[in-house]
């Protein structure tokens, strides 16, 4: 029983990160029909920057806030230089290459800065573990899935009740029509990328105390987060968050009852199977592309 609870709690913590990353992919895809493949690296930017700002003498809270803001700025800049120039051309996939390229550059730069070492980010949430039904977990880890759910609800509120949110939905629905209605499509897309960047960096700041900040910390969550976004249906925010949490828990059970080495094999096999049965993802809406 304790073991099962342990796997569920640990799985939710990992899954919360996948969910937050996937949510970022959802936001970008909805408005731009393109994503930032360097999104995993926004986690690293958030986590590492928080570590460096703290070392530079900023108080922990402020260091984290500035690091999250920097993630948003990264999203904004990346959209402008690596995504927008390619979106004006029909069917161009140049943004795939450029965003991956920027990601590799940022990661290489971080490696040079850290010399490959992971750096700790102190947090009151990892000082000691708490025990729930005999299973141990850090409070920090419990917060992560909660933040993912709150972010999802917040996004929903934003889209329903604010002007910019409604503009995001309009752009997602039909870019040209939205433009004809006087919506500045470019600004909305830029806003989406910045928002996704904020979420990604926040995920990085949240997870860094648990996994340590390092140049490569965003690689795996970035990949898994994208996988989760696809399985969950990239058009559905609740879909990707639920899928993220479930995927994290599923991984822990595979690690616990089969083997750690089998984790990726089973995880990605399930992903392919799911896509064969639900080509739009579990919760995704069918998208009509007019050519």
């Amino acid at each position, binding site marked *: 029983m304790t*073991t099962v609870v*342990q*796997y569920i709690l*640990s799985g939710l*913590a*990992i899954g919360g*990160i996948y969910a937050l990353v996937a949510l970022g992919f959802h936001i970008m895809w909805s408005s731009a029909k393109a994503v930032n493949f360097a999104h995993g690296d926004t986690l690293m930017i958030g986590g590492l920057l928080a570590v460096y700002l703290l070392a530079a003498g900023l108080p922990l809270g402020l260091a984290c806030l500035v690091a999250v803001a920097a993630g948003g700025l990264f999203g904004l800049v990346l959209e402008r230089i690596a995504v927008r120039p390619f979106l004006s051309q029909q069917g161009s996939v140049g943004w795939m290459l450029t965003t991956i390229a920027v990601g590799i550059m940022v990661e*290489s730069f971080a*490696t*040079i800065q850290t*010399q*490959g*070492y*992971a*750096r*700790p980010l102190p947090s009151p949430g*990892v000082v000691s*573990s708490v*025990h729930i039904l005999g*299973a*141990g*977990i*850090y409070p920090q880890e419990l917060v992560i899935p909660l933040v993912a759910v709150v972010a999802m609800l917040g996004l929903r509120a934003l889209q329903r009740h604010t002007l910019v949110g409604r503009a995001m939905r309009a752009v997602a629905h039909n870019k040209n029509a939205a433009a004809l209605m006087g919506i500045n499509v470019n600004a909305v897309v830029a806003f989406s990328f910045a928002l996704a960047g904020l979420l990604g960096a926040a995920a990085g700041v949240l*997870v860094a105390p*648990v*996994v*340590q900040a*390092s*140049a*490569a*910390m965003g*690689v*795996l969550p970035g990949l898994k987060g994208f996988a989760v976004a696809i399985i969950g249906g990239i058009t559905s925010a609740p879909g990707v968050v639920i899928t993220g949490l479930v995927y994290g828990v599923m991984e*822990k059970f595979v*690690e*616990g009852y089969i*083997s*750690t*080495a089998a*984790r*990726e094999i089973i995880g990605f096999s399930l992903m392919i199977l799911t896509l064969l049965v639900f080509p739009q993802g579990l919760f995704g809406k069918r998208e009509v592309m007019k050519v």
Partner: protein
Amino acid sequence: MPPQSILRGQLLAAAVALGLSTSLSATAALADQEPCIGNSAAVTGPAAFSGQAIKMGAEIAIEEINAAGGVLGKKLRLIQYDDAGAPPRGVDNTRRIALADKCIAVLGGFHSTVALAQVDPVHEIGIPYMGVWAANTKAIENGRDPNFMFRVSAKDKWVARFLVDEALKVSKTGKVAFFYENTGWGNGALPDVKAALAAKGKELVAAETFNWNDQDMSPQVIRARDAGADVVIVWSLDREANQILRSMDKASWKPAIVGAWGISGNLGELAGPLANGVRVMQTYSFLTPQSEAGKKLLAAVEARTGIKDPKDIKAPSGIANSYDAVYVLADAIKIAGSFDWKKVQQALYQVSRDGLVAPYKPAFDKADPERQDAILPQYYLLTVWHDGKLIPLKGSPYDK
């Protein structure tokens, strides 16, 4: 002859001459090595610290050797290549060092997967390879004769025996678990650890693996705990070892931990007090009483890095191994009286010197395939994490 065909004839002659001269220079190139040592190590990537340490140790040794007159009247040079831990790049670098730079020997790097991949090109070309870090047993004990792979570093087979001895010393129940990373280094160590335990009439109660960047080790920790282990041998790098320690903390389980030297980087910083008492095998420490050579190296390292406290020097084993390896190579070159690969390979068996890490008397033994490794296990050192620093176990609060 019309002007056009004159031109054609001249072109033809020039082409033939050019072809002849390149083929001539190619043969000459094979015969004439340059006074350089080429290093392929991870200067970028997650293990970039290792490449920096190797480079520093080698450069300091080369500076000293050159100050004393160089080798065979020439100044020795280091040519640094980056393999980022990727085997194909290591192979490419090996060819470059041998065929383009025409160096006398290849200095190895941190990653065992790279070292294993280098075995083939090293023997194809026939250039001596000197390992300074990667400890995989089969990279050096590769069954070749003549064997061009040498090492001034630890060997997993011996490290396994060393750590198993220590594990059984601290264990109350004799139940040992093994945590190893899913890489060439970790997987290569599994049979070594099993064999070392079998020699003591014991078996592992749990063997758990994990991948780089794994963020939580709860399942592995729970299985090992439930198997009743009271000591865990760890074959991991700092980042993952930190996750192991944290998962143990969450599972309220505090076994004794003895680790191979992958956790000698910044585990103390990452895991904080959780790392206290974690034992780590090393080949060298700047915190033991230093020999004259040790003091000299320490001063050179401090001058280069600006580090004031020897406790803050990361990867002392990598620096010291690389330093010694270059000296061993220089000795072999002097004995060979030539930069020729084959002659240097033969001369390596005649090197005999008092090294920094260990005495090498002789450094290698041609009659014993196990003795392509220069540092014998009795010179391995046990250190322990204490309040963020790695200190010698002897005389530490954990030395009971």
